[in-house]
């Protein structure tokens, strides 16, 4: 829209002198503007250097929680440390001495146990080792005949003639070595109580 067109549709507007908006500026404002601007730019450059420092990720999101937690911890510590039991300082020495003594016993025990345990373990291993080595089964072949005869003569072996008869059925025992301990009446009673035919058949 040119000036002629404005004149037609907006004559009042067209008549406003020199199209002046009415605003003005302080004296020499435009003469000093560059210096002011460069001062501002240099100042902002310095600020840029300061902001060259970096913070860890999400630092500003978490810093509040960290501070609050620390403050709470400090408050708690203060609360804990400001109150002490009655007569605390009077009994303190005895308590400490008692603890020292207990500590020394514990220390002795610790010293003992420090050495005993390894020794015990070593001994156990030794025993196990020895047992393993002596666990070889002994047979009659390992025994000398003289050792067996000596064993029997010493009466270290207990046996009865019936067991011998079972073990050595083919051996005829010499009467002189066989002594009956049964009486005649015992034999008769036995025969009366048992069926002879059955006895004969069994034997």
């Amino acid at each position, binding site marked *: 829209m040119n000036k002629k067109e404005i004149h037609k549709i907006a004559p009042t507007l067209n008549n406003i002198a020199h199209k002046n*908006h009415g605003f003005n500026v302080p004296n020499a*404002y435009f003469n000093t503007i560059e210096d002011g601007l460069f001062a501002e730019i240099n100042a*902002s450059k310095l600020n840029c250097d300061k902001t060259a420092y970096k913070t860890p990720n999400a630092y500003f999101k978490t810093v509040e929680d960290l501070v609050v937690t620390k403050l709470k911890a400090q408050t708690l510590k203060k609360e804990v440390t400001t109150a002490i039991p009655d007569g605390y300082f009077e009994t303190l020495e005895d308590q400490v001495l008692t603890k020292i003594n207990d500590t020394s016993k514990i220390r002795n025990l610790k010293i003992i146990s420090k050495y005993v345990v390894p020794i015990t373990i070593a001994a156990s291993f030794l025993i196990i080792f020895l047992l393993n080595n002596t666990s070889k089964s002994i047979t009659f072949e390992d025994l000398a005949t003289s050792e067996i005869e000596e064993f029997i003569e010493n009466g270290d072996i207990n046996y009865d003639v019936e067991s011998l008869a079972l073990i050595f059925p083919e051996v005829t025992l010499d009467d002189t070595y066989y002594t009956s301990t049964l009486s005649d009446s015992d034999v008769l009673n036995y025969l009366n109580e048992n069926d002879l035919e059955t006895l004969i058949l069994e034997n």
Partner: protein
Amino acid sequence: MDNDTLLVEQLKNKKTQEQAFRRLMSLYKERLYWHIRKIVFSHEDADDVLQNTFIKVFKNIHTFKEESKLYSWMYRIATNEAITFINKKAAKQQVDLSELQLKTVQNLNNDIHFTGDEIQLLLQKAIITLPHKQQLVFNMKYFDEMKYKDMSEILDTSVGALKASYFHAVKKIEEFLKHIKP
């Protein structure tokens, strides 16, 4: 190589940057200032926004791709800075932008840096009744006599839309002035 290209080259070169920047400021400071001033009204606010604009230009000159004119690029930065400024100011005062503008214009008589007469004050009151983008279009066309092509680059709006917007702005202001003017 045209003047703009040469200036941009000097601005991007650290050795010649300061000198080139001073030249840039001397070339465009007044135009940018008045553009900003018509948006923010107050001289102090305009001074702040102008400084912010030039600082932004200085820091971001390496990103300027020369797809548009240097002036259009700077003008766009100035427009955005001014709009951001007044929006922040309105938010701080917990009012909407129209209310802030109304308060400001009503106090223009008390502003030592406003020496306009009654009709010029009335014109400012008329302008703030327009939608915000239309205010920009009106100011840039009526007071700065900017070409539609340049306005299109700055406001990222088609020439046709700008023409239509200006036409409607002029009509509304005329109605306001006729209605109010004694």
